């Protein structure tokens, strides 16, 4: 696409200053999300997925902070904005859906009050107009009897219904980007399927770009257009979802796909990646994945893997799977 992407992240680095060391939970991450596109961000806990999302929307808690890199929303740089300007962007520019629907709603306000407050904060509309739109928003996310339930408190809704309210809340000011951080992890499979379908439909209808953070490869496969696989703060692999999942190039992606129980159907043992993801304070030298990698060579132990740009290259690996010959020239 030649249009300006809705979200462009360039060489984003987030650091946490601790008493002992400087940690880098996000290290040199770049990606683009176009209008109506869904980017899946996968990885294990501690890979930096949520931290990337929070950095984009400007919700990093101290001592975590962006130390370099750029974030553009519709071509406008937003990582340098003041907190009050950033506040205006949240809601109209970027909507956010968090993992736990119970903690992202205020238990002391009715669902309607929360929706109306959000809309009036960002859009020039009257109270009654906002209420009308709130009812419509609830109907759109599939809450039965929206007109009656708008005056209920969050505790009166089930987990799945609550997550629908949170989605309505994220979308009500019509943002051009939605960051959904593990939106279905706390939900049952049947409800998860409902929420995923809903999110996909709403975004397609409105052309909203979505950054979907999850650890579930199945959800990514069914929902995302593009996928970024993260490992120890860096993008290990970035590309169209079908290619990355069916022909992974980075050994980590390959291992991740292989460890899913479905991939070893009919075998007595699952394929496993040995070891654990290193802690940020104790990253090995060279490629962070090399101690667990069966393809590791001298170059991997010495040099950090190649940094992935937003639009070129797929795997941040010196010896990508299925391309051994060409990779040898680089080494």
């Amino acid at each position, binding site marked *: 696409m030649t249009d300006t992407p809705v979200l462009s992240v360039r060489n984003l680095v987030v650091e946490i200053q601790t008493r002992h060391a400087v940690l880098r939970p996000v290290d040199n991450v770049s990606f683009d999300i176009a209008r109506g596109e869904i980017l899946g961000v996968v990885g294990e806990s501690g890979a930096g997925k949520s931290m990337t999302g929070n950095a984009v929307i400007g919700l990093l808690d101290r001592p975590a902070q962006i130390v370099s890199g750029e974030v553009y929303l519709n071509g406008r740089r937003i990582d340098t904005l003041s907190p009050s300007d950033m506040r205006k962007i949240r809601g109209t520019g970027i909507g956010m859906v968090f993992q736990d629907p119970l903690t992202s709603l205020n238990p002391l306000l009715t669902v309607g009050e929360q929706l109306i407050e959000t809309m009036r904060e960002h859009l020039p509309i009257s109270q009654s107009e906002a209420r009308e739109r709130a009812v419509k928003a609830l109907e759109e996310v599939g809450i039965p009897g929206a007109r009656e339930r708008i005056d209920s408190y969050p505790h009166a809704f089930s987990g799945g219904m609550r997550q629908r309210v949170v989605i309505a809340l994220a979308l009500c000011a019509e943002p051009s980007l939605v960051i959904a951080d593990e939106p279905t992890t706390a939900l049952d499979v049947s409800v998860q399927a409902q929420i995923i379908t809903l999110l996909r439909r709403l975004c397609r209808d409105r052309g909203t770009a979505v950054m979907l953070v999850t650890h579930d490869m199945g959800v990514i496969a069914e929902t995302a257009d593009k996928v970024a696989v993260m490992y120890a703060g860096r993008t290990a692999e970035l590309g169209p979802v079908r290619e990355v*999942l069916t022909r992974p190039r980075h050994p980590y992606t390959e291992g991740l796909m292989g460890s899913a*129980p479905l991939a070893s159907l009919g075998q007595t043992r699952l394929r496993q990646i040995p070891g654990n993801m290193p802690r940020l304070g104790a990253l090995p030298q060279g490629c962070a994945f090399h101690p667990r990698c069966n393809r590791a060579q001298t170059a991997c132990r010495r040099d950090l893997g190649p940094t992935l740009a937003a639009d070129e290259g797929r795997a941040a690996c010196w010896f990508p799977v299925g391309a051994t010959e060409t990779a040898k020239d680089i080494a």
Partner: protein
Amino acid sequence: MSTKPAMVSVRNLTRRFDVSKPWLNRVVERLPKSILTAVSDVSFDIPAKETYALVGESGSGKSTIGKMMVGLLTPTDGSVTIGGVDLSRETSAKAMDAARERIQMVFQDPYASLNPRWRVRNIITEPVAARGGDTTGLAERLLEQVGLSAEDADKYPHEFSGGQRQRLCIARALSSNPRFIVCDEPTSALDVSVQAQVLNLMSDLKTDLGLTFLFISHDLTVVRHMADRIGVLYLGRLVEEAAPDALFTTPRHPYTKMLLEAAPKLDGFGRETEPPTGEIPDPINPPKGCAYHPRCPLAQDRCRSERPVLRSVGESRSACHFAEKLVAD
């Protein structure tokens, strides 16, 4: 049902919880008592050295069954018989104690189920030490058995990652030399690559030590990999029971079918299916007839009035009036 002799046998297991408001509120607000039936009339057998899996969504009663199987909860009705000892009716303390020694449990959250102030050595050997058994070298042997190193015995739980902690929980469960282990969502808190390690460890132990497992999970793909037989729970009732391959290829209950279709597929690129409708109903006032009928695409008048019983359909058992029709479609 399997013809092999059962190691564990569960009969008409039922558990009700009183979830009424306090007495004064009930009198003032004129509310009736409310009773939640978490598990209702569940029967199944687990043959020795096999893995039986219970799957279901939240609120289906799977953890309640698990707790009743190890004796953490007493059944309201029905029985759990393990190795010939009926846990809720056995009167001989000696027989009861012997039976309990052979039962262990692995919990879901490895962060909450290990005492942070105890050393790993004491945590692991506690089931033996509590009975006054000999624990010399036991911790070291168990740690190596679960893929950790003997030096880890003097560390504290916080020094381990999630997957390693779950290995510690497994080591603790193995210490009293059990025959039967209940695993309640043992890998739900773990990442996929670590989950694979823990599942492999469990399969190895099952083969090496000849253990019998009850495996509780909400993840159908994990269950398919681990189980010899799978029971699907809905609102406290067993709605289908089958061998893994049969369950996945020819589900005989519409709820199982829905679960299978709703689960995300690794190769389901851009898959657009009609998502399931509705949610699990309120267990205090479950629907009349078949509990699944408000969400079921096949529901007819009979389903709304008459509760289907669990009956044999081919090699499986299903609690659906139209189990035969479901397969034909």
